[in-house]
């Protein structure tokens, strides 16, 4: 408690009439000036506030959790409420997307832009593992930014690929194609000739007659005589500058010998219809998206032609 002012040891500062505390630094002394009383009231108010806060909100740590507080507030609950509010806010877009046929989405620019934004978020969760965060892909995983599409680059084709996947064994409507493995069908020398011809298609090697002949008999039924591929079969264009696996000799030899059977999961059993449309719109928006939908191929027909069940 405060010392009695009548304490004769207390020296008084004459101009102010206030007692010295007794501390001195280089001749500067501290005065025992009383605090204003409103400061005391403010201090008591903060104590009352703190007590109320402790009662209303979780505060005291116990063994397994903390006291709950009268308001029942939790940070998880707050997050849940915010997520719910976000869902409510998103609901008009999601409902409109669920309702609109995917081929009409590009024409509806406002909805399309909303879908692109939503798709960008969903892409980061579901697709980046294979296609990369910039959708650039890597060896065996297509770059979605460019204009080279195995199965079609209009929004309907992208949507079909997303919905049904590629080479999903348990799904009838999945994109399906199987290039034969030519190991044993062709001799190593013949394979080498075919590889040379394929490289020549994109100007990476000189043309060779033997390879061209072998290509015409073994490969042209899917890839076409000019090697430009056929989307109905998912047969890649061998004559352009882009390739999924690579165009060097070793890679092409491996491809011809053992074939490639890349798989993309179908998403219709994992994501809702609106999210899949968002992803389709996002992939379509990356720059390679084709504007006019190519007449949707009859999948069954294409499969039949490809010798698939």
């Amino acid at each position, binding site marked *: 408690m405060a010392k009695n002012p009548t304490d004769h040891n207390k020296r008084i500062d004459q101009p102010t009439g206030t007692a010295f505390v007794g501390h001195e630094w280089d001749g500067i002394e501290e005065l025992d000036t009383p605090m204003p009383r409103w*400061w005391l009231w403010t201090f008591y108010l903060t104590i009352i506030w703190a007590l109320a806060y402790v009662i209303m909100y979780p505060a005291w740590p116990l063994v397994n959790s903390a006291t709950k507080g009268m308001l029942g507030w939790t940070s998880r609950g707050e997050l849940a409420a915010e997520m719910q509010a976000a869902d409510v806010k998103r609901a008009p877009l999601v409902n409109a997307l669920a309702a609109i046929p995917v081929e009409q989405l590009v024409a509806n620019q406002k909805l399309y832009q909303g879908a692109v934004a939503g798709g960008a978020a969903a892409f980061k969760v579901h697709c980046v593992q294979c296609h990369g965060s910039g959708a650039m892909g890597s060896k065996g995983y297509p770059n979605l930014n460019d204009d080279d599409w195995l199965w079609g680059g209009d929004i309907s084709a992208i949507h079909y690929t997303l919905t049904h996947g590629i080479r999903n064994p348990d799904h009838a409507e999945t994109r399906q194609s199987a290039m034969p493995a030519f190991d044993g069908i062709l001799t190593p020398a013949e394979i080498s000739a075919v590889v040379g011809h394929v490289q020549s298609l994109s100007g990476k090697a000189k043309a060779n007659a033997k390879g061209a002949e072998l290509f015409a008999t073994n490969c042209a039924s899917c890839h076409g005589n000019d090697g430009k591929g056929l989307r109905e079969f998912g047969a890649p264009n061998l004559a352009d500058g882009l390739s999924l696996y690579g165009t060097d000799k070793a890679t092409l030899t491996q491809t011809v010998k053992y074939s490639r059977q890349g798989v993309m999961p179908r998403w219709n059993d994992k994501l809702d219809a609106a999210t899949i449309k968002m992803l389709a719109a996002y992939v379509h928006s990356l720059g390679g998206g084709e504007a006019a939908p190519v007449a949707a191929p009859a999948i069954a027909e294409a499969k039949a032609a490809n010798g698939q069940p």
Partner: protein
Amino acid sequence: MANLDDLIGVDNPLYEKRKGVYPKAVDGFFRRFKWAIMAVALTIYYATPWIRWDRGPHAPDQAVLVDLANRRFYMFNIEIWPHEFYYVVGLLVMAGIGLFLVTSAVGRAWCGYACPQTVWTDLFQHVDRFVDGDRNAQIRLEKASWGPEKIFKRFAKWSIYLVIAFWTGGAWIMYFADAPTLTVDFWTGQAAPVAYATVGVLTATTFIFGGFMREQVCVYMCPWPRIQTAMMDEKSLIVTYREWRGEPRGSVKKAEAQPGAFGDCIDCNQCVAVCPAGIDIREGPQIGCITCALCIDACDSVMEQIGRPRGLIDYLTLDDVATEKAGGTAHPTLKTLFRPRTLIYFGIWCMIGLAMLFTLGQRTRLDLTVQHDRNPLYVQLSDGSIRNNYTVKVRNMETRQREVELVVKGLPGAVAWTSTGSRETATDRVRVSVAPDTVQKIRLFVVASTEGAPRSDFEIQAVALTGNERGDSDSVRFERPEAGQ
């Protein structure tokens, strides 16, 4: 409250009770000056949000509006966008230097006349006089026990405080939304929760700070008096008691009995009675003095009555105090205002103001920023050419729809298109339509041949097709794969 007083120690108080201040009504030059400033300041504060200003169909018609929701600041015919916030910064710098200027020239004039705390305290002290009467009546009432009269007067006074406080808080929110709409929304319970919270907080602070804390805010809470103390020098005007003329104090009668024995101060205590901060100016310059100069008015009127020269309490510089003490004559008040320090402050203040006015006149209302996509940096296309993607933002800062052409300059053979176009029909320019007062975000795809440096700088220009105003351009980079990739 005896127990509490025991607890906090009455004999040697750790905590000091506020000493009541009951300033007496006074008339004079400075009092009238304060009236005028109060009238102007309060009128500006309460009325400004209600001034209308026609900006056409796409913008609000409130003359002064801080539209936080849409991130726009309107002030008559000036519209500030968030990226032009440096104008606000400039105004704040001008306000700061303006305070340096005022403080170095006329001391704590801001505190004495224009500070909101001073203006509202002054207003509330007039309410005190209106309800309770002048100084003596106020002191009597304070000392009186709680009877019907005191209860009624306290209730009346605090009710008026509350109305003023509420009006003050209510006026504040009008700067942030359309005032007539917000008023209706506020009273029908449809305004945003933040509006009610703001009014509540500002009502409480005005009520407590203006009604009860008063000069304690200036002495204990406000940092400005302490900063000002460091900014004043011996040439700054402060309210000073001419103690060499006033001392020793003696009444008119004593002075008549013993001519020459007493100074001019008759110890009438009027300077103390009128002081809104409750100090005695005759003790010399002190932190509690807000230099409102009401003591000058009080003393001058007394000096006039007893036929002695005015100016026993006066605006003087510390230099002049020394001069007069030594028997010299003080500089004329106006002359003390013009000296290098104040002129330099004024020069800086003017330069910032003129620079801001100049840039305000020169600023473009069409703005372009282009950002190169970093992931992927470039895309190789099937025909061997290279595509780069850009996010283009076109700001149309006018309240009308504008057609804008984006032109790719300095990238040979390049073509550009947006998400609504296609490469087949692309040329070196793209036309976009930008809605009034909005930022249009555009994905721009630019394709060029693979021949060229791995990094080529080029320019994207935005040219407004409507009207003849200038456009904007942004320099960006086109990336190609490094050799061997």
